[in-house]
């Protein structure tokens, strides 16, 4: 079965460019603003959308995404509301892939079988569950795949030859290469090390690879686009959103345009590489 993710990467290959994968946290800073941003992402140039399912204890995330998760929860975001955002997005957009990313506990207590059914029904294409390594994902992965979703695993700088087969087995959609040994949005990734690792992973799988975790600037996007099929930008978007808020952490007039403006700039690097070089 071809998922929206598979179709998207086929299309990107045809266009001869890497895709921009954008991450936002569902419900940050509030449901309506977050939904409006979500709806605007494809036109701004997002090829694939990752939606963070907020969690109180985001262990693999740096300060920017921690804060965004807490803002969303404070504004009343729940898993049900996150799924309803996906559903509302799908009313007008039936092609842009949506990947839900987060931690296992909110899925576990939902519980798993109902979450899988509701996520698929809402129009979700893929799942990334950060704290569910291959050793533990048997209780979610087969059900999610059977229901038609891709389950995307993380490969990291610490993934060695012994582990890579386990990481790549029974996975689909794409492989998410975490570009730094660290938490989201902190250290700057080293392009040479990323290139070497991605090259090595490519030798072991035919799946597309998206690189993320420390990507902030247009230069980084352009550099990673030359080694991978997708470039993920998360903390940079979430930080831009945070900066647009008022003193009470509420959305302002500037919130949506600033965020989408940043996405436009980042995506134009991938769509018009020649022009960027010329500038």
């Amino acid at each position, binding site marked *: 079965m071809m998922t929206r993710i598979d179709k998207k990467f086929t299309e990107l290959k045809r266009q001869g460019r890497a895709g921009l994968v954008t991450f936002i946290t569902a419900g940050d800073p509030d449901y309506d603003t977050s939904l409006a941003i979500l709806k605007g992402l494809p036109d701004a140039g997002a090829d694939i959308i990752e939606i963070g399912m907020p*969690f*109180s*204890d*985001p*262990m*693999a995330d*740096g*300060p920017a995404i*921690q804060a965004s998760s*807490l803002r969303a*929860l404070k504004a009343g975001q*729940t*898993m049900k509301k996150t799924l309803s955002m996906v559903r509302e997005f799908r009313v007008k957009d039936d092609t842009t892939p949506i990947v839900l990313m987060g*931690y*296992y*506990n*909110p*899925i*576990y*207590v*939902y*519980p*798993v*079988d109902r979450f899988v059914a509701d996520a698929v029904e809402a129009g979700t294409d893929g799942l990334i569950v*950060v*704290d*569910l*390594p291959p*050793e*533990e994902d*048997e*209780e979610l992965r087969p*059900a999610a795949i059977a229901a038609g979703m891709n389950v995307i*695993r*993380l*490969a*990291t*700088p*610490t*993934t*060695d030859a*012994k*582990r890579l087969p386990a*990481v790549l087995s029974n996975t689909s959609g794409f492989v998410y290469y*975490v570009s*730094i*040994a*660290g*938490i989201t949005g*902190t*250290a700057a990734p080293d392009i040479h090390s990323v290139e070497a690792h991605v090259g090595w992973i490519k030798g072991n799988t035919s799946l597309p690879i998206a690189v993320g975790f420390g990507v902030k600037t247009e230069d980084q996007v352009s550099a990673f686009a030359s080694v991978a099929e997708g470039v993920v930008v998360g903390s940079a978007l979430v930080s831009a959103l945070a900066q647009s808020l008022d003193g009470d952490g509420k959305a302002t007039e500037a919130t949506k345009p600033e965020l989408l403006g940043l996405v436009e700039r980042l995506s134009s690097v991938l769509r018009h590489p020649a022009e960027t070089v010329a500038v």
Partner: protein
Amino acid sequence: MSTATDTPPQNTYRSGPDEQGHFGLFGGRFVAETLMPLILELEQAYADAQADPSFQAELDALLAHYAGRPSPLYFAERLTEHLGGAKIYFKRDELNHTGSHKINNCLGQIQLARRMGRTRIIAETGAGQHGVAVATVAARFGLPCVIYMGATDIERQRPNVFRMKLLGAEVKAVTSGSGTLKDAMNDALRDWVANVHDTFYIIGTVAGPHPYPAMVRDFQSVIGKETRAQMMEREGRLPDTLVACIGGGSNAMGLFHNFLDDPSVSIYGVEAGGHGIDVDNGHAASMTGGKPGVLHGNRTYLLQDDDGQILEGHSISAGLDYPGVGPEHSWLKDSGRVTYVSVTDKEALVAFQLCTKLEGIIPALEPSHALAHVMKLAPTLPSDNLLVMNMCGRGDKDIFAVAEHLHMEM
């Protein structure tokens, strides 16, 4: 749905965890891929150490000459008389170097860190007892160490913060989340993910991803082993009743584990009931007032809301104020082998004062919880019932907090 919901019928409670680190439904390795290779390496290194007699010999020497083990098994005569029931013994782990049971585990883990060639130590701490014990062993072996401690806890455990600094540790105030133990653990895990090449994370309780729950239990099991031998010597038989407080559950597992397969021994774990189990988010009793979930690398009973968001909980004791509990306890609860109860802040304060006045021992607020349950339980038991309570920490660190709660001038 779950991989191991049903535990096979068994004739031992001491064989867990399985190879994947599961205690029935609980435990496991729910960590980001970045940490997985490290956790597997740690598991291997710990297995190698266990197979190497010199590792245990070195640890035994440190426990004897540095920590001061064995700790006495003390007959609390006046308390026994006062409560009029079971014969009450205290396992005096508060007499260890640094004032609590935490040193038992820290000596074990730092030996392992050294074997693995790690050069930097990190840890989380709540009450600061684990932080002090880590800072102590790091000083003893000349390794730099960083202790993550919630900003809220730093306020209520000032003396321990100062001790850690004196010992040369860097104390990092954690402001993320609610600034308590769970957030300190998050930040320690984040540090570890970012410094995987040289850093050893000394977790302070029987929680975290496999192999920590089993490894910390093993290092703490010296408590139960000694208790068995001491009781045999004193009374010529096993104890009838064991009582210990539960934060993450390390002092309790340390006392209980040796006795799990002795059906004549009744075992009680005492959780922090805070303002009361019925008060929303007003307690830290994960087993008596929570439900199974996944946090900090393992599946266990957790304080959480209907959406799976972790709650802060509350306890007068910073050392018990943790929304989870070690997975082996969750399994022992569901299997019915151990009875878990809770006592409130108020009951713990009463016990704290009683012990101080009757026995001349100022207990930490954590074992004061165990003692509060002993106060309820002992009078219901016959006078030949041998009860052992783990006096796992001394109360020096708590005198400021207690003075405030009792509205006393210092």
